[in-house]
């Protein structure tokens, strides 16, 4: 994910667990707007560059 950052580091910076980051990566969980913005902020990219809507249903 964005070069060298680990899931654990990203999780700590966003304020969620590593499992939640794993779930988001695996499209098993759709984050709240707040968490989505925080992730985009960590990467220094706009929201739409990090998240794309595919139309498929994600499961919790």
């Amino acid at each position, binding site marked *: 994910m964005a070069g060298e950052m680990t899931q654990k580091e990203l999780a700590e910076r966003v304020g969620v*667990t590593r499992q*939640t980051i*794993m779930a988001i990566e695996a499209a098993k969980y759709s984050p709240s707007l707040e968490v989505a913005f925080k992730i985009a902020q960590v990467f220094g990219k706009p929201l739409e560059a990090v998240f794309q809507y595919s139309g498929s249903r994600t499961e919790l």
Partner: protein
Amino acid sequence: MTSNEKLKVLKALLDSLSFRDLTLTLDLLVTGAVVYFYASSLVMATAEQLASGVWISQLLVKVVGVSIALSIVSQLLLELVSDGEVDQPMDEREKQVSLVGNKYALWTLQAGVCFAIGQYAFEQNGMGFAERAPLPFFTLHIMVGAFLLAELVNYATQLIRNRMVTRYG
């Protein structure tokens, strides 16, 4: 599979366990132990004991006592192995998973209570199978069983939901 490979698999499994998984696993084990204590007490009881309201009341007090003691031990264990994670609040996904677990637990509890109400109504009216209830105070045992089963369903559901995420991660 060699013992070295088995160790690797075990290490990978432990690495993938979150603190929440560990907490839920311990809660599940504690509830399982309480269920075992309750069920084994009923199985080993004499017919006189099962028919005694005093004995049943004492058993329920013991079940609550065992439950509290095991919960304290499990919380102490978690405090020992955690790195300050015990005090951290659940994140948004964990809260949602917890709600799903609570939903299924509530359904289980409601089904148990409905069954108990039906059993009681039939028993009082001398109808159907209720007259041949396998235990005295059967309605009470149904409700206690439903409560314990709901707890098991709650923890198991949350664990399964969390593990599904980890497996695909």
